[in-house]
């Protein structure tokens, strides 16, 4: 366990957060802050280096989600060390470069913050010791690179490039995640040590092809392998420091890093060999060929990057230990020369205002020093001897020629390698020639001079490195490479020599041929066609665009077709689902076994007939609303008569009262709704709806019949038996309501009270135009009012009676509450709301609140005594004069019910009765104009 590793990882994130939160105003502070993180990181890395060079692997493990196998485990082997070094070192240089690159009006803290985030993600990925953790950092690099690429977010190109990169690499990341999880399932652990040791197990597992496919999908997208390469050139919309960092040393290297990382676990099969090598080869050629035809400096570099990544991939595909060494070597080399080239391109852009080679030229006169640096780096890219690129390319040629056991592959690889060499030289030549030589620059509107000193230093450092490695590899790069190779191959590191001179051999010939061929190709192309006039279509981007657009369009078309906001359609689907899930499969299984019906008394038939006839009539009359309402009233009456017949007096009473109040509500509402339903649906639709209605009705009816004719076996006997002795009530229904299942009732009155509140909230400030206003003032109704004055106190007495009797006879809080409310409603109807409310000023809202509290209090008291909520009690205190007074605590609860029901019902009714008409423009309430004309919109079928 070492502390340096977590610290190393935490630094960039911590500094990023500081940067983004603090947002230092001074550019210098910002840059220093951004630079300190990797500098300290390098220090930490240096501290760990001796151990790593000794071949040990410093680790730090913290548990995270152990059940998942996800640990926060960091591990610095040679490979990780090499990458960390690269990430941090080039990171420092990029920060230094960017400090001068960014113009004065740009948001530097944001830039450096994002950059540090990316750096941290990248570091995390390379030092992760757990595959899941690696996948996490992998995706973090996608996210942070999204932010970096889109940094110049005002530009369409930047936004599109960022989204494209995120989409492609994000997709790859998800595939990788899948692959990682599969690896974990096969190996039983995500720990890298375990996974790397389980190569044989993995390769032999039936899931191996799937794992390989998923992991490679991640690698290929990230490393811009053909055919996923097209995102990379578009990522060039990013500021150049970003390109220099992401597309030379880090982001795109993540893919090949993983290839190296998992080499022991996944490589070594035919499948791996063929797939990776061919994809690498294809990428190598496609990238190199395309690079020749770019006009944008960064475009050229981007395609060249693609090509070099193809080369590295191909090397790893070859799978031999030597190929791995070569791959690692080329990773380093490419990072150095490509970073310096990007930076040089940035300087050029910075100084001339353009990166278009058609407008550039002859810059060696204006930027002699920068030109020299860039030319050296470009030669390294071309693989010219004494530069680092040459060494690894040489190795590549050798390896291609040495492929064993695949003769065809050997030939193909060698041809590809040679062609790549040719193309590489050609585009490097183009880069050098079109920029620094020839005519130009054209149409450049500023004075061109060398950039600030510190902007060049990073380039210098890198170019020096190119040279040093190219000239004295053994003293410079050898230990690094050996360490990294040991990290991948362990003790299987082959013997190799990093000498500049291996004698005249075939690879050297190939290199030579490449240089000559490349030169000829470039010159030939210049002769044959006007290179500057070639317009390359970004086919990949086009495809991506078309697909994205098609995806969006179709998603939209589909979504808005399906979820068109139609209630009818939603309901229709509910019904269909009902039939599918509950109806058809069950009814077939229901079969016989239903018992017989009992005979029915005459009154029963009359009630049945009333209900049936009224229901049918409702359906046919439904468009004439008042009539439909009347007829529905009859249905309700019939239903309550059913309850009467079937031994349910409480229900009958409740149904009747609720029916009355419902009619009142509907009438009140009808005043504000059209009196008739406009028919907007066609016959076909009505038949369709009728059909499904009948099917569902038949289904429910059948189920009901089947249920009713089965023998009964319920908990009811116990309820009946315990009602009187323990619930102190004879009316078992009421005892259930206030005692056995008092909690239900509690919920029920809460619903009721809330309904009142909702209506209040909806209508208090509303102004609604009546559908039609009868002219004139209200008729005084002296005679009915007079009678209702007489009735009112009597009805109140009956209400009290029903309330007190409820526990032993039909009645109870709910019924009593409504018997209180309905007469009051009558007063509203006959006397007008103003008359009533000015004299009986109830605050119905508080009434609801008090009712709820009273009910709750009855439940809470037993809690204080150590019994559960709502435990009922009973007492018969002797009251002087009155005698024994039977008191069940349930009565208290019922009082709450009474209050809530009364308050809720009256709140609803009074709110609906006192809706104000809309304000006229003058601000005075006037009788509303006729209702707005109904738009005769045809329903979507």
């Amino acid at each position, binding site marked *: 366990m070492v502390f340096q590793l977590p610290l190393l990882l935490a630094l960039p994130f911590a500094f990023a957060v500081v940067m983004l939160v603090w947002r230092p105003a001074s550019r210098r502070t910002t840059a220093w802050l951004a630079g300190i993180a990797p500098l300290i990181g390098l220090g930490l890395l240096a501290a760990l280096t001796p151990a790593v060079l000794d071949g040990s692997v410093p680790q730090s493990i913290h548990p995270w989600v152990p059940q998942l196998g996800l640990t926060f485990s960091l591990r610095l082997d040679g490979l990780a060390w090499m990458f960390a070094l690269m990430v941090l070192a080039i990171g420092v240089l990029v920060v230094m470069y960017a400090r001068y690159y960014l113009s004065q009006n740009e948001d530097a803290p944001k830039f450096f913050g994002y950059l540090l985030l990316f750096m941290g993600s990248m570091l995390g990925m390379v030092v992760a010791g757990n595959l899941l953790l690696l996948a996490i950092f992998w995706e973090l690099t996608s996210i942070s690179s999204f932010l970096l690429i889109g940094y110049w977010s005002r530009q369409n190109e930047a936004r599109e490039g960022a989204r494209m990169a995120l989409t492609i690499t994000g997709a790859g990341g998800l595939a990788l995640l899948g692959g990682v999880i599969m690896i974990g399932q096969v190996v039983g652990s995500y720990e890298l040590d375990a996974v790397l040791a389980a190569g044989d197990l993995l390769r032999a597992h039936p899931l191996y092809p799937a794992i390989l496919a998923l992991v490679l999908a991640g690698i290929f997208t990230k490393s811009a392998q053909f055919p996923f390469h097209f995102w990379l050139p578009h990522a060039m919309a990013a500021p150049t420091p970003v390109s220099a960092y992401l597309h030379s040393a880090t982001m795109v290297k993540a893919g090949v890093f993983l290839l190296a990382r998992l080499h022991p676990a996944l490589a070594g099969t035919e499948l791996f060999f063929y797939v990776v090598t061919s994809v690498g080869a294809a990428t190598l050629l496609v990238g190199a060929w395309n690079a020749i035809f770019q006009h944008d400096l960064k475009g050229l570099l981007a395609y060249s990057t693609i090509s070099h990544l193809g080369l590295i991939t191909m090397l790893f595909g070859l799978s031999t230990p030597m190929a791995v060494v070569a791959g690692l070597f080329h990773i380093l080399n490419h990072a150095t020369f490509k970073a310096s080239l990007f930076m040089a391109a940035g300087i050029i852009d910075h100084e001339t205002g353009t990166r278009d080679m058609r407008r550039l030229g002859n810059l060696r006169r204006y930027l002699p020093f920068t030109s020299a640096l860039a030319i050296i780096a470009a030669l390294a890219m071309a693989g010219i001897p004494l530069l680092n690129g040459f060494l690894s390319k040489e190795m590549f040629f050798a390896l291609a020629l040495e492929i064993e056991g695949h003769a065809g592959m050997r030939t193909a690889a060698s041809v590809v390698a040679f062609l790549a060499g040719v193309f590489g030289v050609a585009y490097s030549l183009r880069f050098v020639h079109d920029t620094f030589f020839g005519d130009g620059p054209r149409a450049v509107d500023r004075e061109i001079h060398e950039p600030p000193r510190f902007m060049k230093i990073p380039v210098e450092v890198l170019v020096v490195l190119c040279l040093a490695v190219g000239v004295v590899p053994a003293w410079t790069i050898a230990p690094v490479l050996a360490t990294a190779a040991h990290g991948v191959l362990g003790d299987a590191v082959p013997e190799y020599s990093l000498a500049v001179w291996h004698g005249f051999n075939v690879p050297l010939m190939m290199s030579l041929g490449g240089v000559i061929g490349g030169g000829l190709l470039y010159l030939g192309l210049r002769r044959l066609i006007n290179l500057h006039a070639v317009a390359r279509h970004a086919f990949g981007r086009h495809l991506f665009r078309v697909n994205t657009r098609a995806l969006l369009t179709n998603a939209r078309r589909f979504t808005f077709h399906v979820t068109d906001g139609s209630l009818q359609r939603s309901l229709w689907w509910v019904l269909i689902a009902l039939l599918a899930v509950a109806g058809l499969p069950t009814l077939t299984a229901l079969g016989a076994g239903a018992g017989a019906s009992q005979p029915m008394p005459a009154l029963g038939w009359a009630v049945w007939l009333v*209900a049936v006839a009224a229901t049918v009539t409702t359906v046919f009359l439904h468009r004439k609303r008042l009539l439909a309402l009347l007829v529905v009233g009859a249905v309700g009456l019939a239903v309550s008569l059913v309850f009467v017949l079937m*031994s*349910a007096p409480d229900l009958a009473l409740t149904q009747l009262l609720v029916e009355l109040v419902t009619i009142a509500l509907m009438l009140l509402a009808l005043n504000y709704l059209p009196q008739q*339903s*406009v028919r907007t649906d066609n016959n076909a639709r009505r038949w369709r709806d009728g059909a499904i209605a009948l099917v569902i009705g038949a289904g429910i009816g059948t189920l*009901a019949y089947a249920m009713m004719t089965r023998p009964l076996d319920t908990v009811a006997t116990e309820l009946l038996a315990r009602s009187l002795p323990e619930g102190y009530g004879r009316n078992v229904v009421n005892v259930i309501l206030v005692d056995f299942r008092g909690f239900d009732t509690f919920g029920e009155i809460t619903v009721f009270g809330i309904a009142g509140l909702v209506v209040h909230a909806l209508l208090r400030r509303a102004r609604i135009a009546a559908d039609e206003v009868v002219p004139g003032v209200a008729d005084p109704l002296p005679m009915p009012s007079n009678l209702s004055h007489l009735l009112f106190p009597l009805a109140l007495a009956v209400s009290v009676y029903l309330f007190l009797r409820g526990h032993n006879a039909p009645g109870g809080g709910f019924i009593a509450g409504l018997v209180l409310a309905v007469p009051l409603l009558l007063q509203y109807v006959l006397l007008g709301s103003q008359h009533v409310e000015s004299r009986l000023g109830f605050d119905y809202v508080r009434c609801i609140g008090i009712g709820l509290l009273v009910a709750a209090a009855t439940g809470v008291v037993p809690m204080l005594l150590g019994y559960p909520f709502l435990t009922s009690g009973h007492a018969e205190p002797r009251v002087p004069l009155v005698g024994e007074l039977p008191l069940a605590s349930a009565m208290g609860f019922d009082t709450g019910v009474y209050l809530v029901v009364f308050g809720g019902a009256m709140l609803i009714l009074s709110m609906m009765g006192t809706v104000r008409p809309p304000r006229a423009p003058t601000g005075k309430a006037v009788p509303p104009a006729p209702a707005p004309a109904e738009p005769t919109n045809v329903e979507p079928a």
Partner: protein
Amino acid sequence: MEFALASLIGLLTAAGVYLLLRARSFDVILGLTLLSYATNLLIFSSGRLVIGKPPVLEDGVATTLAHYTDPLPQALVLTAIVIAFAMTAVTIVIAMRSRSDNGSDHVDAGGEGMP
């Protein structure tokens, strides 16, 4: 008797469903009302159909299902009635407001569909 009630439940359901599928708010509310009748009858019938044995205890009568009907479904229906009423009230008011705000009592009208 069972058949009659079951057929009534079926009919009420069918009528309710049909009205529910009409596109006008008032029709929908009528449909919901009919559906709630059907539902209440169905729950009620889960205690089976017993004539003349209301669950109000009398002295000297054994407290068994032979003498009293099952009280529990009745209590459930009571709760259901009350809740249905509350919901109806809210729906009616929303229908009023919707018509007033959107200028139409078509349940889907007055808006641009999906925002």
